[in-house]
């Protein structure tokens, strides 16, 4: 190691941290000597970087690759990074490993696709890269060749990434800001580099590059909208305390929200293993992310709100309660819920359509789940209730259209069958639903069949 990275480490405070054991976390102390402590440190860093999130197929040999990552540009399959010589990275040197993380090149000098987020990992120190490398050499070698990537021409030509890199990639290790505390810098390193949070939480352009001027203001990943992580009071984390954030990342749950879907996997595989100090550092960094420019409150059609309210009362209020107060830590409160007020409503829509299960963790083993409603509500009804919860009480967000709902329904619902079909004949889908007319009772849920017996169609 050269002197400069060592100073960088010291400035980041990494040299001074003594890590204490938490549930499932590797224990190590930064003595700087001996392989075992390097391997342990590497395991911690691999968890912080969530290598397993892409490189470990569920329930199979760790780091053997093959996990699919669906992007707007095609489907890619993660590489085998076990130390197998033929199919993994067993023949790679520490230099070559660092080059992959830092410059996005494999051992043969070929470009990696930025689905492997080298544009974030480039900030990693050489020492940290070496530690992860040392750890990966100790995992069982698995002989497995992942499927080939499914990319449309000309993207299957890796050299094209040279163009992408020229436009969007700025290699370089993380430079600590001397005007900031060690804690803040550690948080910045965790978020910007290891955690590569921007990989999901920053919007991307058509070429899959992050829109850096909208850093951490929310982005799409596999039909989920990863929320705004700035200090925005409405859409971001501005309404969360530091402890809220630490609880969420450690246990997947706090009084406001529950981690589910891809973020649930991140919590389970990565952030739940981080130390309290590191989680607090993340909080210190995020609390200073500037909010996006506030947009004017959109006008919402009162008839849609009435229809949505009626649906909400019948279907949602048992758990989320009439005033959206939920049961904090269990059924998320919907009033003031940042996730509901994102500019992009995809998460709201899909949660209503397919339901969602909060990821169980050791600290919160109950994976509280919301059931699916795709079989029960039409696109118009889902749009109405989604618009309602996004704008009821003190919430405010753009309304949801039935077109947005049907688009997601086509993608998602065929993969998610409704709960076991009732043994009775299914209720006829309500006739073309109408929005409640201005004078009507808000209890009218917009379906003319309400109150009448189901009939054969």
């Amino acid at each position, binding site marked *: 190691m050269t002197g400069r990275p060592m100073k960088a480490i010291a400035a980041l405070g990494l040299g001074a941290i003594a890590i204490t054991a938490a549930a499932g976390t590797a224990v190590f102390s930064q003595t700087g000597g001996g392989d075992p402590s390097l391997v342990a440190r590497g395991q911690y860093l691999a968890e912080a970087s969530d290598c397993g999130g892409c490189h470990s197929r569920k329930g199979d040999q760790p780091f053997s690759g093959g996990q699919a990552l669906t992007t707007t540009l095609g489907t890619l399959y993660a590489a085998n990074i076990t130390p197998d010589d033929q199919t993994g990275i067993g023949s790679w040197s520490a230099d070559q490993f660092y080059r992959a993380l830092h410059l996005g090149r494999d051992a043969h000098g070929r470009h990696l696709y930025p689905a492997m987020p080298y544009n974030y990992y480039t900030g990693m120190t050489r020492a940290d890269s070496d530690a992860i490398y040392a750890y990966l050499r100790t995992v069982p070698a698995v002989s497995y060749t992942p499927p080939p990537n499914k990319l449309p021409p000309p993207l299957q030509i890796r050299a094209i990434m040279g163009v992408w890199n020229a436009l969007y990639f700025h290699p370089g290790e993380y430079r600590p800001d001397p005007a900031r505390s060690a804690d803040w810098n550690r948080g910045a390193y965790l978020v910007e580099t290891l955690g590569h949070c921007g990989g999901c939480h920053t919007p991307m352009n058509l070429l899959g590059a992050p829109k850096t001027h909208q850093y951490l203001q929310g982005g799409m990943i596999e039909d989920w909208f990863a929320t705004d992580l700035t200090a925005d009071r409405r859409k971001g984390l501005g309404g969360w305390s530091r402890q809220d954030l630490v609880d969420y990342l450690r246990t997947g749950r706090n009084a406001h929200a529950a981690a589910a879907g891809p973020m649930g996997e991140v919590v389970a595989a990565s952030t739940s293993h981080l130390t309290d100090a590191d989680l607090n550092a993340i909080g210190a960094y995020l609390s200073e992310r500037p909010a996006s420019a506030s947009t004017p409150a959109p006008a919402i059609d009162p008839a849609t709100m009435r229809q949505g309210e009626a649906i909400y009362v019948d279907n949602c209020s*048992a758990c989320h309660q009439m005033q959206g107060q939920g049961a904090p830590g269990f059924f998320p409160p919907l009033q003031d819920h940042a996730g509901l007020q994102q500019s992009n409503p995809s998460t709201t829509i899909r949660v209503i359509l397919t339901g969602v299960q909060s990821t169980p963790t050791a*600290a919160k083993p109950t994976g509280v789940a919301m*059931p699916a409603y795709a079989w029960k509500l039409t696109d118009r009804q889902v749009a109405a209730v989604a618009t309602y919860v996004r704008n009821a009480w003190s919430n405010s967000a753009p309304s949801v259209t039935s077109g947005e709902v049907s688009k997601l329904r086509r993608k998602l619902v065929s993969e998610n069958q409704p*709960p*076991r079909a009732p043994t009775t004949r299914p209720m006829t889908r309500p006739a073309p639903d109408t929005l409640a007319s201005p004078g009507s009772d808000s209890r009218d849920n917009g379906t003319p069949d309400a109150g009448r017996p189901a009939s054969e169609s």
Partner: protein
Amino acid sequence: MATKLPSVDALVVGFGWTGAIVAQELTDAGLNVLALERGTWRDTPTQFAPSFDQDELRYFWRQELFERPAHQTVSFRNNADEVALPMRKLGSFLPGTNVGGAGVHWNGQIWRFLESDFVARSHNIARYGKSAVPDDMTIQDWGVTYRELEPHYDRFEYLCGASGKAGNLNGRIQPGGNPFEAPRSREYPNPPLKLSYPPVLFGQAAETLGYKPFPHPAANLSRPYTNPLGVQLGACTYCGFCEKFGCGNYSKASPQTTILPVLMRKPNFTLKTQAEVLKINLDSTGKRAVSVTYVDASGQEFEQPADLIVLCAYILHNVRLLLVSGIGEPYDPNTGQGLVGKNYAYQITSSVNAFFDDKVLNPFIGAGAMGMICDEWNGDNFDHSGLGFIGGGYVGVVQTGARPIETHPTPDGVPMWGSKWKRSIAENYLKTMSVATHGSVMSHRGNHLDLDPTYRDVYGRPLLRMTFDYTANEHRMSDYITDKATQIARAMGPREVKVNKRVGAYDITPYQTTHNTGGAIMGADPRSSVVNRHLQSWDVPNLFVMGSSAFPQNPGYNPTNTVAALAYWSLDAIKTQYLKSPGALLQA
């Protein structure tokens, strides 16, 4: 030919309440535990979601959550003069199946028994003389005392987040609770459920008569709760679809909502569903269980060896497994010999409908154990001198809901069909309530379980045959407490009441309770019990039998809390004594 599988440390047969409790404790003790469940996996958001769960046709009428009689049933007769016939549709009792068993569809009525219940024989003889317990009333002392079970009751109540008000804290009577209850060491984990109008009305009337009503203890939660395992439950929404239904709000205690989230994550626990245990295999001495034989969904047979086997398959299947496996001697009511199948008991219930003109009762608001109860006439809480019976039951209003297919009481004199019937229901539904009684059943030499000589199940095993009827003791007791219920019902000021006493022979067709007990009773003496006081088989020391099969007779309360407390009590002995030194815990 059965495929033989690798052995496991502990094998749990059946995966309902006791199966989950046993697996959780034994995995904590470090054992490799395998549970075999004949049914399928079930969980709250997929099988009991509130988006479709309140479907009376599907779950009450078409009985989706319960055991399928076409697959497994009992044959029944009132007495040995009759020929037992298979029960082809569930009625009187609703056994569970699939993961969670009946713990999914119970009401959540979570009671402790009285101190005297555990020594029913010696207590009643001491107080009323030998004549109080006739020769053919074969009740026995349990071999375990309330005091010994107290910490285990406490454990289950805190696991479930039980909602209630203590009536007796360490010997000091507390206002607002059950003044008759046995002493408990601490308050319930959650306050009582809110009450709708009918239980409140009952309570007011009972107080005017000088009685001491109190809120029914509930395993429906009055507020969100995290139990000692870290598992979370929600607050009851009073939806009125409790008993016979799963709960979609995580607010009824069940294995799914109290234990499984923690248990299923353990690397030393495995659950195999669609694995039906056919019998327990013994070694050549007949004193050691070596394995079970089970069948999977495709009909393939497997032999699963284990060091320790725990039967958690519900009383009816526990007893049948003992019988078909040749463990212990089957009970013969003619000779009085044998013990397996002896002392089968049940519950005797009755009700009084009260019809009002001036009060809107909204009976559709309900929660499984939401109610007000008077316990003056349960167990030996009152002087039985000269009454001609022992035992008793609780009296009260348990407003579990009033679902339309199931609930349409009409006053006397109204036809049972046609437009007059419909009009009467429409007029009375919102203004009707029911005061119920829930009474004990003493064991009788004629009431027993054995194997049917004629009818077999789909695997060719004889069906369990149930021979049961109430005796004069039960009828006298039930009539007595029904009179008390009538008295309180009248004191509420209704337009009229309709008294539904339990008359005649036990009828297996109308729903009553799923409180079957006995058949593998516990006791201090191997000459009069099938399992010892730790629920260990006297005959086969590496076999333990959980469940209400252990009850020598059935007291006047719902059994689940006691079933769970006995399981924890038994597991205590397994963990602290048996595992260190496998073998008979007590000398025969």
